[in-house]
């Protein structure tokens, strides 16, 4: 087949491979060089001539690049082009907008609390478009910070989406962040609650801001925190779950935000503990104060939605276990990269990989192993492309994927490379 064989047809290959060196007066050429060299001082050659001719990731028109369809990818790409001062400025601006909207959110939550229970109403698509790819932008439980001012740990939440604002409008990005934070707050909290404690495969990295931190993070801290912010792009399944849970969230979220559920001093003590730096409020709720009953209320309010939730977290399960949040390390890194971030990373290079098997009748599989740094450690290609020139091509293409650093040693993902 024409497309299956990457080599040229025989005649052309023979011509290419048999390119000869035309006859010249080589001795004269060499002597001319020697004459010039005699007057050439060492160190006279500019460094540009010794540099590599092309950048490693230099693209050309022949390398199809996947369009940036994920906001997370967009944000990351823009963030790489921003100076630190810009990022910190945007972070502060986003924080101020978020603080204002948080205050409005308290009023909204009061209204929700006082409203009678009704069947869930499908949320409008727009918030989900924003929620769909929060990536590092929206660590969900930021909402758990109640009315306390944002702390240093909240900085990632605010500084994360700043690059997005650079792409569009800084202010609107701040509003987007605040809105996404509020919308996701309750939903993501319940996602965390519904994670089976014994199933690390479903653990998701979640960061919780210290509710008692008194001041806004300084720009420097915001930058550092932004650098550590994990990508939390949810998968489509998580979207659905978030949508579902969001409808049952208000009562639970209110419980989480109730001041008596979390004394300020206790929260600080929790934050200083080396244990998982997630959801300290939930951990405090373990002694059956108010959080667990509130969850029951929330689930009971939406029986058709709550049923699957009960199967995941049986009522008989101890509250501390049932409410244990997604795993995160003491360093703040997620245990493993978020599914959405992995999908985005692989998706961004998949088109290049598919180009390697263009024309083939069947696809191949590749196992991409990410190191904890977020870089690809190895790529194993199986299927028809294995042991062919396409294998190295696929390895090279997929090897360019990158996710945020994570705590686990490695993380593997299987990729189907179809022509």
């Amino acid at each position, binding site marked *: 087949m024409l497309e299956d064989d990457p080599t040229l047809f025989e005649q052309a290959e023979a011509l290419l491979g048999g390119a*000869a060196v035309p006859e010249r007066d080589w001795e004269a050429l060499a002597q001319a060089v020697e004459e010039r060299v005699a007057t050439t001082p*060492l160190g006279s050659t500019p460094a540009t*001539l010794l540099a590599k001719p092309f950048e490693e990731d230099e693209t050309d028109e022949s390398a199809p690049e996947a369009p940036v369809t994920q906001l997370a990818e967009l944000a990351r790409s823009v963030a790489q082009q921003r100076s630190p001062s810009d990022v910190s400025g945007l972070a502060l601006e986003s924080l101020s907008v978020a603080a204002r909207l948080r205050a409005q959110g308290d009023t909204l939550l009061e209204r929700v609390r006082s409203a009678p229970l009704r069947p869930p109403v499908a949320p409008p698509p727009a918030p989900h478009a924003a929620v769909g790819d929060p990536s590092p932008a929206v660590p969900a439980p930021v909402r758990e910070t109640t009315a306390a001012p944002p702390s240093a740990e909240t900085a990632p939440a605010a500084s994360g989406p700043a690059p997005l604002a650079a792409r569009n409008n800084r202010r609107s990005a701040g509003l987007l962040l605040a809105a996404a934070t509020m919308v996701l707050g309750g939903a993501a909290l319940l996602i965390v609650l519904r994670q089976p404690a014994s199933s690390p495969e479903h653990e998701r990295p979640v960061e919780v801001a210290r509710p008692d931190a008194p001041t806004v993070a300084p720009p420097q801290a915001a930058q550092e925190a932004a650098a550590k912010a994990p990508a939390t792009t949810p998968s489509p399944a998580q979207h659905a779950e978030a949508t579902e849970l969001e409808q049952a969230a208000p009562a639970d979220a209110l419980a989480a935000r109730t001041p008596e559920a979390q004394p300020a001093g206790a929260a600080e003590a929790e934050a200083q503990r080396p244990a998982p730096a997630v959801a300290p409020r939930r951990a405090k709720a373990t002694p059956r104060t108010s959080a667990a009953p509130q969850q029951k209320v929330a689930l009971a309010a939406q029986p058709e939605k709550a049923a699957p939730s009960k199967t995941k977290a049986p009522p008989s399960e101890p509250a501390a276990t049932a409410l244990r949040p997604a795993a995160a390390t003491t360093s703040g890194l997620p245990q493993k990269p978020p599914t959405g971030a992995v999908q985005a990373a692989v998706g961004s290079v998949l088109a290049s990989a598919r180009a390697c098997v263009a024309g083939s009748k069947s696809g191949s599989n590749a196992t991409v192993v990410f190191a904890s740094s977020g870089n690809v450690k190895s790529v194993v290609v199986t299927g028809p492309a294995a042991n062919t020139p396409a294998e190295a091509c696929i390895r090279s293409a997929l090897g360019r994927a990158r996710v945020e650093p994570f705590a686990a040693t490695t993380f593997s993902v299987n990729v189907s490379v179809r022509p």
Partner: protein
Amino acid sequence: MSQRTDRELVEAARAGESEAFGLLVRRHQKRVYRLALHLLRDATEAEDVTQETFVRAYGALDRFDGRSEPFTWIYRIAVNLSLNAIRARKPSQRSSSPDDPRIESLLVERRSSVGSPSVATEDRQVALAVVEGIDSLSEVLRTTLVLVAVDGLSHLDASKVLGCSEGTVAWRVHEARRKLREYLAARGYGESDA
């Protein structure tokens, strides 16, 4: 006396032995010229670049760190000089013609084995289509293909010349061949193999 290696010649040239660098020039100038010819498509320019390559290499001997082979290091200088020359050209100088010196280069080996004039004519047409197809490639793909397919460098050596990974070289060569094959097929070449 056994032949000195490239590294030994470089060390000797650094130490001030002018004949050592002359040996290095004579050892590699033909291949450098062929590389420049296929990148530049002009014999005179290729000769100039070849000469300039060795002069520049001598001027940078103090910066040769020995991490790569001298010839890949010299090749990199040649590629950079060729690309500089190409980028300094006017657009009108970019088209191929039947007088393209690369065609003669491609046909030299074939001529000795082909006796029939009709076959020789066909070879010339194919060679012209090949160089036109190579010209249709991007700068990156064309340079990589010339290094590997025409000059015969291994992917490892080509990766050192270009400063990229072997995988990247493999992908570029694969992509260049695929595009070149499509180009030739669109012009009626190689269809019988399809």
